[in-house]
C-alpha cells in the first residue's frame, strides 16, 4: 500500500472560483448574523466585490497559471478563462438588475417571504413588516461558481457536480417572484423536475462512458475512445445521453419545453441571468466534452447535433411568431439562438469556438438588458408582459422603447449591433467547415425571427398607448446595467475586434 499523496491544486489558477464560493459563503453568514434591515446593504456590495474580485483575479493572475490541476478535475485553459470571464462580467450586470429595489426595502423582483402561501395573511404580514429575501445574492454567487466550474471541468464527475451547483440555485430563484407567485412556483417545480430528469440522463451517460473507457477524465476518454474494441455500443449511447443533459440546459429542441414556462414564471432579472449565463456555461461545457473528450467519435455525434441544431432553429423561430407574451417571445428567441450556437459545436474548428464565445457574450449582454427593461414596464404594480400592453410604448416612454428596440435589432442581427458581428463570427466558420445547409437554415430562421422582433418594434412605435401601462423610474443600479448593456451591444457591433481577437487567441482546449 503506497503512501497517500495529497492532490496538488494550483490555487492561483482556480482563485477566481474560490473567491466566488468564498463570497457566497460569507453571504450565507451575513444572512445568519446581520439584522434584517441592513442585510441588503451588506449583501449587494459583498456580491459585487466578490464578482469583480474574481474577474480581476482571472485577468491578472489565472492567465499566467494555465494548466490542468486538481488531478485532472479542473482544466484552466484559454476557453475556460474566456467562458469564466464572460460569465463573471455578465453576472455583475445581472446582479445590478436583480438588486433593483425601486422605493422598497428589499429587491423589488423577489417575494418577501418565499415560504408563505401566495395571498395568505402571512405574506401580507411579511410585506408589511419588511421581510427580505436577500438570500438571492449568495444563491446567485453559488450559481456563478457552478457556471465557472462547468466549462472548466476536466472529468465528467466534476462536470456533473458543477451542473448541479449551477442549477440548484436557479431552481430556487425561479420560484421567488414577488408577483404572480403561483406561476413562479409552478415554473420552479417544472424546472426542478425536468432538470433533475436531465441530470439523471447525464450521469447515466457518464456511467456508460466509464464502463467503456474505465475513466471519467475527458483526456483519458479521448485516448481510450480509439483503442477500445467491442464497446462502441456503450460509448455511443453514453455520448448521446451526456448530450441530452447538456442540451437540456441550453434549451435545445426536443429538450426545450421547460424554457417558455420558466422564463415567464421566473422574476425577470433572474430570467435574464439564467438565459445569459447558463447558456454560456453549458455551451462551454458542451464544447469541452465534444472537442476534448469525443473528438474521435465525431462521425457519430455530429449528425445528431446537426439535426438537433436544425430542429432547434426551426421550432424556436416558428413558435416565436405565435407568442403573445414578451417573456415567452424572448424564451422562444433564446431557443432559436441556442440552435445558432449549436452550429459552433457542430463545425468542430477553433475558429468556430471563437465565434461561439463572441456570440455568447453578445447574446448574453443583450438578453440581460432586455429583461432589465421588461421588469420596468408595469400595469397596476405588476409587470406588463403581454404584448398588447407594450403598444405605443415609444410615445409614452421613448428611452425604454428605444433601448428595447435596439436590443431587438441586435437579436435580429442587424448591422451596427453586436448581433450582426456575432452571427458573422459564428456562421463563417460553420460555412467553412461543411455546415452550409445549416447556415442556410439559420439565415432563414433569422429572417423569421427578425419579422417577430420588427413586429414588436412596430407595435411599440405605431400603435396607440394603452391606459394604465407605465414605466417605473428605476434607481441608478438598473440605469447602470442598461447603459452598460446598450453601450456594449453597440460597441461589439461597431468595434468587435478586441473581444474577437481575445476569443480567437483563447480558443484552444488543453487536453
Amino acid at each position, binding site marked *: 500500500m503506497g503512501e497517500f499523496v495529497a492532490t496538488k491544486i494550483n490555487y492561483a489558477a482556480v482563485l477566481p472560483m474560490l473567491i466566488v464560493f468564498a463570497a457566497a459563503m460569507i453571504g450565507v453568514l451575513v444572512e445568519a448574523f446581520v439584522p434584517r434591515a441592513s442585510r441588503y446593504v451588506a449583501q449587494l456590495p459583498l456580491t459585487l466585490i466578490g464578482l469583480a474580485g474574481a474577474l480581476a483575479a482571472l485577468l491578472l493572475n489565472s492567465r499566467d497559471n494555465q494548466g490542468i490541476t486538481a488531478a485532472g*478535475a479542473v482544466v484552466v485553459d484559454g476557453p475556460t478563462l474566456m467562458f469564466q470571464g464572460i460569465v463573471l462580467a455578465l453576472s455583475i450586470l445581472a446582479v445590478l438588475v436583480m438588486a433593483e429595489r425601486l422605493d422598497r426595502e428589499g429587491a423589488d423582483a423577489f417575494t418577501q417571504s418565499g415560504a408563505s402561501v401566495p395571498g395568505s395573511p402571512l405574506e401580507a404580514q411579511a410585506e408589511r413588516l419588511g421581510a427580505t429575501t436577500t438570500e438571492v445574492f449568495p444563491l446567485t454567487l453559488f450559481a456563478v461558481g457552478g457556471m465557472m466550474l462547468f466549462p472548466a471541468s476536466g472529468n465528467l464527475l466534476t462536470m456533473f457536480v458543477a451542473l448541479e451547483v449551477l442549477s440548484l440555485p436557479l431552481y430556487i430563484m425561479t420560484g421567488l417572484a414577488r408577483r404572480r407567485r403561483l406561476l413562479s412556483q409552478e415554473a420552479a417545480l417544472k424546472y426542478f423536475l425536468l432538470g433533475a430528469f436531465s441530470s439523471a440522463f447525464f450521469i447515466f451517460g457518464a456511467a456508460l462512458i466509464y464502463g467503456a473507457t474505465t475513466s471519467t477524465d475527458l483526456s483519458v476518454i479521448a485516448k481510450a475512445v480509439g483503442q477500445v474494441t467491442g464497446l462502441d*455500443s456503450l460509448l455511443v449511447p453514453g455520448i448521446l445521453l451526456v448530450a441530452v443533459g447538456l442540451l437540456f440546459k441550453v434549451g435545445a429542441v426536443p429538450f426545450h419545453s421547460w424554457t417558455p414556462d420558466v422564463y415567464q414564471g421566473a422574476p425577470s432579472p433572474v430570467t435574464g441571468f439564467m438565459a445569459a449565463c447558463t447558456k454560456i456555461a453549458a455551451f462551454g461545457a458542451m464544447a469541452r466534452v465534444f472537442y476534448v473528450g469525443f473528438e474521435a467519435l465525431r462521425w457519430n455525434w455530429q449528425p445528431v447535433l446537426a439535426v438537433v441544431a436544425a430542429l432547434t432553429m426551426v421550432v424556436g423561430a416558428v413558435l416565436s411568431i405565435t407568442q403573445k407574451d414578451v417573456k415567452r417571445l424572448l424564451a422562444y428567441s433564446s431557443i432559436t439562438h441556442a440552435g445558432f450556437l449549436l452550429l459552433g459545436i457542430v463545425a468542430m474548428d477553433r475558429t468556430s469556438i471563437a465565434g461561439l464565445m463572441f456570440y455568447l457574450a453578445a447574446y448574453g449582454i443583450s438578453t440581460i438588458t432586455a429583461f432589465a427593461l421588461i421588469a420596468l414596464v408595469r400595469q397596476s404594480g405588476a409587470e406588463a408582459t403581454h404584448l398588447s400592453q407594450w403598444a405605443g410604448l415609444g410615445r409614452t416612454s421613448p428611452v425604454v422603447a428605444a433601448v428595447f428596440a435596439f436590443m431587438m435589432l441586435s437579436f435580429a442581427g442587424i448591422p451596427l449591433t453586436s448581433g450582426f458581428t456575432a452571427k458573422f463570427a459564428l456562421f463563417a466558420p460553420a460555412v467553412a467547415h461543411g455546415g452550409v445547409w445549416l447556415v442556410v437554415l439559420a439565415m432563414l430562421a433569422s429572417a423569421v425571427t427578425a419579422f417577430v422582433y420588427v413586429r414588436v418594434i412596430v407595435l411599440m412605435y405605431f400603435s396607440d398607448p394603452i391606459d394604465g401601462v407605465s414605466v417605473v423610474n428605476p434607481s441608478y443600479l438598473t440605469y447602470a446595467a442598461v447603459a452598460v448593456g446598450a453601450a456594449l451591444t453597440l460597441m461589439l457591433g461597431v468595434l468587435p475586434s478586441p473581444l474577437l481577437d481575445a476569443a480567437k487567441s483563447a480558443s484552444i482546449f488543453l487536453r
Partner: protein
Amino acid sequence: MKLGGAESTLFALAAPLSVIGALALLFARKAVHAAMGMALTMVVLGIFYIAQQAEFLGVIQIFVYSGAVMMLFLFVIMLVGVDSSDSLVETIRGQRWAGLLLGLALAALGLATIGKATFPAGTGLDRANSQGNVSGIARLIFGNYVWVFEATSALLITAALGAMMLAHRERLSERPSQADWSRARIKSGRNVAGLPAPGVYARHNAVDTPALLPDGSTSELSISRVLKARGQVATADKELAISQELEGETGDMTRRGNGDDK
C-alpha cells in the same frame, strides 16, 4: 466472469425484489406505499453492494438512504397527510400512452445497443480492494476527486439555504403571550372568559364534539376550526340522548328537556 452459486442465488432472489420496489414507487396510489417501495429498492441495492465486496458503500446505502433519507420522506408524507394522493387526470389527451410508447422504445433501443457490448475480462474485486475497501474509497475521495468532494459542499449549502427559504416561516413579530391574549379579549369585550370548552357529556367527551349552549343549541366556538375545515366535527345528538336518559333515571334534571329555561 462467472458468479459463485451463493451470489447468483442471492441475485436471483433479491433482484426481482428491487424491481418490485421500483415498480411500486411508480404505480402505488398512496404516497406511503410508494415510499416503502423505494425503501425496499434501496435496501436491496445495499445488499448488492455488500455482495460485491463494497461493504462500506452498502452499509452507507442502508444507513443513510434507507435509514435517514427514507425515514425523513415518511415523516414528510405523514405531516402532509397520508390520505393525500395525486390527481391522475391527463391534461393532454393521449399523453400517457404516447409517453409509455416512447419510453418503451427508448428502453428497447438502449437494451439492444448496450446488450451488444462485449466486455473484456474484469480485473477482479481483489485488485479493486487491494488497498482495503474503506481506505480505497478514502484515497479516491481525498485524492483524485478532492475537488469534486469540496464542490459538493456548495451544493449542500445551497440545498440548506433553499429549504430554509421555501419552507421555513420566519416569525416576524413576537409570539403573543397568554397575558397578551387575555388583554386583547378584555379589550375587545368578546369571549372575555375565553372560548367555551368542547362538549363534556356523561359518557363521552372529546374535542370533536361541540358544547351545548344554555338554549340547547351547539356552540360553534367550542370546536377547533381545523376540525371544522376538515369536516371532522361529530354531532352532539347521540351524547345528548344518552345524557338525558341517564339524567331521567336519576331524576336529576326532572325531564324538562334541554336547557334551563324550558
